[in-house]
């Protein structure tokens, strides 16, 4: 996948470029608005990661100009402007997702991949399989090592999201968004409580270690080899 990063802070550029290269993506960078716009309009990208406060041309203006040319490349806005109003402004201007700085690369990766795969025709999956964990989406049947797991609706949604992103660190914010319709940072242990319940059910079948807590980052569903 080919990504364009428009960002003027060198440290952030290094951090993001290193991360995506490790994941096997191809990433190009532009350090000001004009360069960003000319790159975005002259070559084909699967995703544009866009800072807002850029030299020469503001990120939102760049985005408006890009959309005005009919270019529909997914754009993920990455900005230090964190307020709800700013987020709304970014999404209204044609952004597909909005992340605020500071951020964790793991979360950026999940959001970026979601946007990059959006246009592709996803083969209709009815089953998710991660190691010995199987989830049938139609019957909502979940089995571990062939033994059935009885899950509450929220636990089911959480596990589904973790299985779709197996081996990736998923932040609490992402899990929260995946399960609840209300977007706010609850600063509570709601997610932890649900994960703990899920993990207890795994433990009963002898596989508590499948859901790993990554301190300071979130959770990861491990795929056993």
């Amino acid at each position, binding site marked *: 996948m080919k990504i364009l990063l428009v960002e003027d802070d060198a440290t952030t550029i290094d951090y993001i470029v290193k991360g995506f290269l490790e994941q096997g993506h191809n990433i190009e960078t532009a350090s000001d608005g004009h360069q960003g716009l000319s790159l975005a309009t002259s070559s084909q990208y699967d995703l544009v990661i866009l800072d807002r406060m850029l030299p020469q041309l503001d990120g939102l203006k760049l985005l408006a100009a890009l959309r005005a040319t009919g270019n529909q490349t997914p754009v993920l806005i990455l900005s230090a402007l964190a307020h709800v109003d700013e987020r709304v402004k970014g999404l209204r201007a044609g952004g597909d997702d909005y992340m605020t700085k500071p951020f964790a690369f793991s979360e950026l990766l999940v959001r970026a991949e979601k946007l990059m795969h959006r246009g592709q025709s996803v083969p209709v999956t009815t089953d998710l399989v991660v190691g010995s964990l199987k989830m049938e989406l139609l019957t909502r049947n979940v089995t571990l090592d062939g033994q059935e797991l009885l899950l509450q609706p*929220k636990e089911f949604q959480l596990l589904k999201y973790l299985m779709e992103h197996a081996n990736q660190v998923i932040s609490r914010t992402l899990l929260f968004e995946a399960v609840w319709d209300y977007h706010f940072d609850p600063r509570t242990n709601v997610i932890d409580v649900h994960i703990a319940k899920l993990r207890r059910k795994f433990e009963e079948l002898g596989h508590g270690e499948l859901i790993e807590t990554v*301190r300071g980052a979130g959770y990861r569903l491990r795929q056993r080899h």
Partner: protein
Amino acid sequence: MTVIIGALLFTLYRQLIIEQQYQVTQSLESETQRYQQLALTVDRRSFAAQIRAADPQTALIAWRDSYDMVGALSFMPEDMPMLPQTRDFPILTGGPDKLHILTGGLVMTRYGPVLIATRTDNLATLIDKFISAAATAVMLTIVLTLAFGYLFSKAILRRLVQYNRLSEQIERGHYNTRLPLSWRQDEFDMLALQFNNVLDILENNLLAVRGATDNIAHDLRTPLSHIRIGLEELASKPSDEISEGCAILTEELDHCLATFDAMLSLTRIEEGQQTLDLQELSLAQLCTDLLDMADAVAESNEQTLSLSLLSDYKVFGDKYLLFQALYNLVDNAMKYSGQGARIEIIQSGPQIQIRDNGPGIPDDSKERVFERLVRLDPSRHLQGTGLGLSMVKAILSRHNAKITLTDNHPGLVVTITF
């Protein structure tokens, strides 16, 4: 001003002219009648005597008795019209004012045409005098108007210069500067008053922001110093503990950021800078969602959480903000009421109650808990920013809802009324 005076004077002048003409016509007419009557009643000789004796102040009479001119005039001008038509004609006198203008006409009598004339040059001089007096008056008013206008504009300009100087002071950061008010209560004072009101509001906002930033700085200092210590210790840690240490520091940092964000959004909501995304909401639905989210947490605390919906009520509000406020209250109840507590959410019409049977809040602290960064738990061992209830209050007051804390004997009852 000058134009009005000019117009008045002109009207007066017109009246004067009309009046003069009227008087001339009147006196000529009465003289005409007199001599016509006279001619009918007396003989030619007494008629001549009468004409000779006529008072020249009233009218000048002239009559040609065969060859001699009788009366005040020594000649009969040619082409005189018959009265009431008149004509102006000049005469010479031996007196100091040599040339006079007379107005007059002929009247036919039994003894031939009689010239009846009257002096109009006195009136004409009067009118001349009037015109020059009027012109002087008009000139004077123009001069006075200009002088007063100049002085008046000087005064206005002086106030504007003063306002300008004061606003420059404000620009330089003297935000307590106010524009002076005079006793006149004129438009300038109204402007100054309005300007001062704006300055009051701006200064208050500025102080609020300053207060908030001071609080942020204060509350961030502790976690930031923890991080600093942690980073110093990290260098001397065995390599297998480094990743765990980093994770702990990241969590501390996230907590800092969360506090920072909460401070900013609290200020924005309190100051009304955040626009609410208003929509019709069902309180019953909000409470159902609340139970849905909080249920598992209560269960893990071995608490029972119950929901009673008595009668639904619709409000216009910001769904996310209201939910955040309500969740915050339920979350507090779960955090502070302890293991095994019973928590009830009761929604009845415009009222939502969250009741618990935990330790409650002492009466003297019930108001204080809404202040920023006030946490009754001095050890602060439970995670939180100390802003939750301030945020709840700010959100509810933006929705014109009231919140009260009362005793549940034991425990706390939080009542929200829309």
